């Protein structure tokens, strides 16, 4: 398969994730859509790594996986904290920091 196909697939996945982040309101689902976008980026990096025949991109993807795991942990911690304080789990309702 040509590398272009992988890149277009990655762009499609990124777009779907972006639509989810913009349209959905539940913070858990927004975090899931961020995962989608990160995995799309990882796919693009792997495609370029294969194109160049160089494995550095794979190490990069591994680090991205670690960063994504950190983001999930902190994000889900925030969701649990919101739930404990009986705040509505709806990002449209969380307006207190809005200027």
């Amino acid at each position, binding site marked *: 398969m040509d590398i272009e*196909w992988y*890149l277009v697939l990655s762009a499609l996945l990124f777009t779907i994730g972006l*639509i989810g982040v913009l*349209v959905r309101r539940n913070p858990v689902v927004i975090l899931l859509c961020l995962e989608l976008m990160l995995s799309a980026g990882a796919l693009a990096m792997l495609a370029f790594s294969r194109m*160049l025949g160089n*494995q550095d991109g794979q190490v990069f993807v591994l680090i991205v996986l670690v960063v994504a795991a950190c983001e*999930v942990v902190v994000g*889900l911690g925030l969701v649990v904290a919101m739930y404990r304080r*009986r705040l509505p789990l709806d990002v449209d309702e969380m307006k207190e920091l809005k200027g």
Partner: protein
Amino acid sequence: MEQVAFFFGALGALGGAIAVVAVKNPFYSVLALVIHLVFLAGIFLLLMAQFLAAALIVVYAGAVMVLYVFVAAYVGGIEEPKWDSSPELKVIGPILAVALFIAISIAILGSGLSALGTPGPDEVPSGFGTPEAVGHLMMEDFLIAFEAASLLLLIAAVGAIVLAGRRREDPNKLPKGGES
């Protein structure tokens, strides 16, 4: 054969991704993401990234998704109307996203990289994508990134405990800005 595998994996990954966004219940969104990640790991295999495919399944579809299922179950299945977002975003969001897709496609197709139209070089270094090769790279060339990642994980773990840890139930000792 490779084409069949690619399109099979791509259809599964896209279907899983669309289901994540479209399904009402967050619990089912998490399960859809697991399906997406399994198919994505198959595509990683086609790109000769065996170690990362295994890591994706073990770390993501295994560990991280268990965390998600846990939180989704703890918070409860709060269903929201499917596209009931604020009216501006409902229109602008998809338009922005499609515009971004078109921009990325133009960037890919117009990049002039001749290697994009090939499946990559035939001869790759032996052991391309195996745990041994990636581990060597990580421990020799990218040691600082590796250590920084471990530090980041530690900070994230401490941060999650601070954020989500159980506060004392005594109402007089609530932290500032607590429930009011």
